[in-house]
């Protein structure tokens, strides 16, 4: 079975390609990229005229909620949402129930994904047992079972000594360490960014310093240990500055930004609407601007959604009782186009890097390029398609998005995983 994607604007940052061409996918792999490729007998032809053809997008930070929270999302439903967002690979965080802190859970996720997921799913293992921050998890075993990174996302490792040891182990296993940077003492009880809005609304604040303190500590530990260190969902001006400075000193640090953090600030929140409640919180306009600047300057090397489904009943509560997080897989590409590319902050090719080679350089999945022999993962999208996001039509099991009803220009059109189209608009 082969597919010829004809006449699209092929942009492959890994090879520097950006011209109108055809992409032939055969046997689940990229077979050929070039102009005027003749369709093999029986090949499906996909006319990509006027569309962009890119390597399959990688989301290095999602929550698929399985095992344990299947009422909010499953590996299958989350993978379908990923496909509808143009993602061909997702890396899922370990805060499931049980926590993915052992090869058993890692294998379970890998096996469930093999049977039910429509995109590639790569588990991220916990740093510590139960993500409790005390005893290191069986990192080597998890890697052998398929884990591609370690993180205690949502439950940051507060003990600096434990974090140091984790970095040392991760280095010996050549795994990246991903930290959700939040000093839990500084942020305790907070529901939104600490600023004018939180004071006005009488909500407890999560100060920017709670992120900055942790980033600062971890950068020192990364320098000490030589680990590959990655800051998840960076959200503050100072954290962006610190990561930028560390990168200039050749410390092996990378960071990702979420679409909601480069799109929204606390002043955009609807009062007490839990679809605007996430961690890190929507920061000040100044912080949001710094995240966009960091993307433009190359400090931020990946866009990741932090797709965090929560059932309606959990989000239909008093603001302070609602859990943190929003879904984001289906709106990420459109937000990147509207907030970053259309205003001229970054080029289209650079945006594709942030969805492909950027996360690939951290996670090393062997994906994110369109070269012959590479897996047949392809994202086809439009830069001018007009559409509106209706969260009630989402493939996710959850509906917690602040972008419901938003009209977009540009978005995904077709998603191919290992040579098969798994979603088409």
């Amino acid at each position, binding site marked *: 079975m082969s597919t010829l994607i004809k006449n699209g604007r092929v942009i492959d940052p890994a090879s520097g390609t950006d011209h109108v061409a055809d992409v032939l996918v055969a046997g689940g792999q990229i077979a050929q990229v070039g102009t005027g490729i003749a369709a093999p007998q029986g090949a499906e032809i996909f006319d990509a005229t006027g569309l962009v053809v890119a390597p399959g997008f990688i989301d290095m930070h999602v929550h698929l909620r399985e095992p344990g929270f299947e009422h909010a999302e499953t590996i299958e439903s989350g993978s379908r949402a990923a496909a509808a967002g143009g993602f061909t690979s997702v890396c899922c965080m370990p805060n499931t129930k049980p926590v993915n802190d052992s090869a058993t859970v890692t294998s379970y996720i890998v096996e469930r994904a093999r049977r039910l997921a429509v995109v590639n799913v790569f588990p991220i293992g916990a740093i510590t047992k139960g993500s409790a921050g005390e005893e290191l998890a069986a990192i080597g075993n998890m890697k052998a079972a398929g884990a591609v990174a370690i993180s205690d996302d949502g439950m940051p490792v507060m003990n600096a000594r434990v974090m140091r040891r984790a970095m040392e182990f991760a280095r010996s296993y050549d795994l990246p360490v991903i930290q959700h940077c939040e000093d839990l003492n500084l942020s305790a009880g907070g529901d939104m960014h600490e600023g004018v809005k939180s004071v006005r609304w009488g909500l407890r604040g999560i100060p920017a310093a709670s992120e900055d303190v942790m980033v600062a500590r971890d950068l020192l530990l990364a320098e000490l240990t030589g680990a590959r260190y990655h800051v998840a969902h960076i959200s503050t001006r100072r954290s962006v500055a610190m990561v930028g400075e560390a990168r200039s000193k050749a410390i092996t640090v990378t960071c990702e930004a979420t679409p909601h953090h480069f799109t929204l600030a606390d002043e955009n929140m609807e009062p007490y609407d839990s679809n605007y409640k996430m961690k890190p919180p929507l920061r000040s306009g100044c912080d949001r601007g710094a995240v966009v600047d960091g993307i433009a300057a190359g400090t931020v090397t990946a866009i990741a959604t932090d797709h965090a489904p929560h059932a309606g009943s959990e989000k239909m509560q008093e*603001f302070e009782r609602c859990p943190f997080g929003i879904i984001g897989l289906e709106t990420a590409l459109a937000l990147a186009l509207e907030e970053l590319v259309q205003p001229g902050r970054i080029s289209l090719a650079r945006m594709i890097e942030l969805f492909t080679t950027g996360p690939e350089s951290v996670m090393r999945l062997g994906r994110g390029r369109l070269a012959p022999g590479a897996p047949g993962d392809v994202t086809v999208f439009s830069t001018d398609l007009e559409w509106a996001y209706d969260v009630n039509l989402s493939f996710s099991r959850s509906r917690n998005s602040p972008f419901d009803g938003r009209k977009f220009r540009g978005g995904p059109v077709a998603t191919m995983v290992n040579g098969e189209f798994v979603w088409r608009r």
Partner: protein
Amino acid sequence: MNAGLLGIEELDRAEIEAILARAKEFQPLQSQQVKKLDTLRGKMIVNLFYEASTRTRTSFEIAAKRLSADAVSITASGSSVTKGESLVDTLNTLAAMRPDAIVMRHSASGAPHFLSRHLPTPIINAGDGTHEHPTQALLDARTILDRRATLEGLRVAIIGDIAHSRVARSNVHLLSKFGAEIVLCGPASLLPVELEQLAPGVHLTTDITEAIRDCDVIMMLRVQLERQHEAAFPASEYFRFYGLRLEHLDLAKPECIVMHPGPINRGRELSSEVADFQRSVILNQVENGIAVRMAVLEKVIG
């Protein structure tokens, strides 16, 4: 948006003036033999209190009864809340019984605002978390205006745990709309700098003598130990630095009045002598609470 009363911030000056004027008309009723009017006959009000309250709940009940409305009061401990029902489900159940308004107090900031998006019934906010307590600010304004011609140009000091005070926020919004000068005073850890941007005319100080100097009104706040999630200040020295004592009053204008939303803690935020001081209007505030809440109920469901 239903026609309830969620906060002072959303009201304009004319709406506030109308409530205060109507409350003034209700004041004489409090000293009459027969204190009841027919205005809200046949109307039903549910008082839903998720937090302990004596004066506010009683005041709303009396206000409703003086207007001949039927009032039912529910406290969280005796309701389905303890059976794990969600807030929105509880409110939907109550709304299905067709009350004309729900008066609600809740420990979560924004709880009434959240509910108002999902309920057809008007909600009157009787205090939400650390956000707003609109009827308190209205009765405070009524109490000041019983003694002063206008709020404009008055210097009002609000002293205590500002960060956690819904009374302070509502008063700041109200006083600012009328051109008062507002000085917020408390320990730095309870006085976030962002408060200065809450409304025009707000200044901050950590020095009680600076706050009181030349002021027309002193509003003391209760030290809300139940909202202290950590030791934001050493409780043992609070009274020494932020407790109001008689000698402080020499710094204020001679006719300065002392207010407190209650319940008062003698010896913690103000001395016993100040509580009983002749220009302390704490009980007038309580009395005005009924007239103001009558005006609010009439506005919302009349």
